[in-house]
C-alpha cells in the first residue's frame, strides 16, 4: 500500500529499478503494477493506493514498529546498499548479518519500510 501512487511509481522505477507494467485508470487512482526487469512477465508488484482507513492504521503500526511491508532478494546487498544510498535512499538498518543471510531496511517514502536481503 502506498500513500501516493505517482511518488511510488517514481521511487519503485527510477530508484529501485522496477519497470512499469500496468497503469489503468480506476477513478481517482490507478491499477498500477511494476515488475522486475529480468522477468517482465513474472510476478507483478501492485502499488496499491491507500483508500481504506483501517489499512492506514495497519500500515502506520507496521511502520512505527520498523517492520518491513515486503522484501526483495538481491544478489549483492553491499553493492545495492551503496547504489541506493547514492540515489538518496536513507537506510533504517544498514546491511546486518542474520545467520546465513544479510538484511537491510529502508523507507520507500510512501509509508512503508522495505527490506532487501542476500542469502
Amino acid at each position, binding site marked *: 500500500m502506498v500513500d501516493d501512487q505517482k511518488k511510488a511509481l517514481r521511487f519503485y522505477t527510477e530508484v529501485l529499478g522496477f519497470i512499469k507494467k500496468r497503469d489503468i485508470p480506476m477513478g481517482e487512482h490507478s491499477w498500477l503494477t511494476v515488475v522486475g526487469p529480468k522477468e517482465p512477465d513474472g510476478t507483478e508488484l501492485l502499488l496499491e493506493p491507500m483508500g481504506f482507513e483501517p489499512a492506514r492504521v495497519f500500515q502506520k503500526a507496521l511502520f512505527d*514498529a520498523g517492520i*518491513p511491508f515486503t522484501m526483495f532478494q538481491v544478489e549483492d546487498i553491499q553493492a545495492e546498499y551503496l547504489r541506493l544510498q547514492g540515489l538518496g535512499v536513507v537506510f533504517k538498518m544498514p546491511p546486518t*548479518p*542474520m*545467520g*546465513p543471510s544479510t538484511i537491510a531496511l529502508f523507507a520507500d517514502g510512501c509509508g512503508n519500510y522495505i527490506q532487501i536481503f542476500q542469502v
Partner: protein
Amino acid sequence: MTFYEQEVRRLHALMYPRPELTRRIIQAKEYIDRNFQGPVGLSSIAGNAFLSKFHFLRLFKLHYGMTPHQYLTAVRLREARRLLAEGLPVSQVCGAVGFDSISSFKGLFKRYWGRTPSMLKKAILETGVAGKV
C-alpha cells in the same frame, strides 16, 4: 531501537549463537554453489567445514531449511532451467549441471519445475520469455 530491530537481534542470538559455525556453514553452501557441476559428496563438504557428517547435516538444515543434498539438487535444477532457456539440448544440460543419469534428471526436474525439461524448453523457446513458463 524499533520492535523489528529488537526482534532481529533476539532471533539472531537465539538461532545463530556461534558465528564461527555459521561462517563455516555459509562457506559450505558457497562451496556447493561453485562446484555443483561435478561430484559433490557430503563427506568432503563436512570435512572442509571441520564438522562430522551428522553435525554438518543438522547445522546446514538449521541455517537453510533443507539438507545439503536438497540444496545441491535445487542449485542444479535452477541452472538447468537457465541452460535450457539458452537452447541447450536436454542431454547436454543434464551433464553440465552434474547429473549422471538422464532419467533421474528428468524426474527431479519435473518434480521441481512441474514439467519435463523438454516441455519447459519448448515453452520457453515458443514464448521467448523464461519467466513466463
